[in-house]
C-alpha cells in the first residue's frame, strides 16, 4: 500500500472512527490502523464496482462493530468528549465557541445519525455509497440525512442566539 493512500484517507477515517467510538482516540486510531492493514492484506478481494474509500470505510465499520460486540458496555466507560483532546486536530484552529457548539450538536445525535452525517460531510460519500457502508436502504439514507442536517442547523442557530 502506498503511503499517499494512507495519508489521503487517514483524516476522514480516523475522524469517523473517533465519532463512532464517542471520542476514544486511542481505540479509534487502533481501529483505523487495523483497517488499513486489512485493506492491504485483502486488496485482491476489492472489486472495482465501488470506490476504494467505500470499501475501506466498510472494513472500518465492521472492525468497529466487532469490537463493540466483544467489549459490549465496557466500551462506553472509556469514552470521553472529543473536545478534551484537541491536540493533533485542527479543532484548535476553529473558534472555541463554534467548536463547542458543533461538538454538542454531534453529541446530541444518535450514533446512527452521527454516522450518516459524518459519512456525508467528511468523506463526501454519495447517498448510494452511504447506503452500502451503513447497510441502510437508500431512501432511508436520504430522508434521515435531511432530518439530521435540519436538526443540526436548528441546534446551531438556537445556540447562536
Amino acid at each position, binding site marked *: 500500500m502506498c503511503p499517499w493512500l*494512507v495519508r489521503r484517507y*487517514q483524516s476522514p477515517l480516523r475522524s469517523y472512527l473517533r465519532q463512532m467510538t464517542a471520542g476514544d482516540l486511542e481505540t479509534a*486510531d487502533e481501529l483505523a*490502523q487495523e483497517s488499513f492493514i486489512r485493506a*492491504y492484506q485483502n486488496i485482491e478481494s476489492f472489486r472495482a464496482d465501488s470506490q476504494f474509500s467505500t470499501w475501506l470505510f466498510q472494513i472500518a465499520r465492521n472492525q468497529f462493530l466487532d469490537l463493540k460486540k466483544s467489549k459490549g458496555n465496557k466500551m462506553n466507560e472509556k469514552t470521553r468528549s472529543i473536545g478534551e483532546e484537541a491536540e493533533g486536530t485542527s479543532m484548535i484552529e476553529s473558534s472555541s465557541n463554534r467548536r463547542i457548539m458543533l461538538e454538542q450538536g454531534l453529541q446530541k445525535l444518535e450514533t446512527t445519525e452521527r454516522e450518516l452525517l459524518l459519512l456525508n*460531510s467528511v468523506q463526501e460519500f454519495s447517498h448510494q455509497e452511504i447506503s452500502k457502508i451503513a447497510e441502510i436502504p437508500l431512501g432511508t439514507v436520504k430522508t434521515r440525512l435531511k432530518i439530521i*442536517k435540519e436538526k443540526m442547523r436548528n441546534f446551531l442557530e438556537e445556540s447562536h442566539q
Partner: protein
Amino acid sequence: MDNQFDLELEKFLEVKDNGFTERVMKQLPSPAKGRSKQKNLWIWAGAVAFLGLFFIWSLGGSIPVGNFISGYYLPTAGMLCATFSVVTGLFVYR
C-alpha cells in the same frame, strides 16, 4: 447553506496525520512475507529441477542409459527451462 455547513463540519473534524501514516506503513507486512506458500513452492520446485538437470547435464554421456537421458540435448533444454522458470518466478512473485 448545506455546503457551508458541510465545509464547517469537515474543517471541525479534520485530523492531522502526526505520524499516523508512518506507523501504518511500519505495520504493513513486507511483500516478501506476503508471498503465498504456493508461489514459494513453485520457486523451490524450479530450483530443485534446475539442480537435478544440471547434475544430469554435468554427467554428460557417462550414464549408460541411452542417448535420450544421458545425451546433452534434453538436459540442456531442461536446464534452460528450469533456469528461466526460477528467474521469472523470482521476478514475478517477489
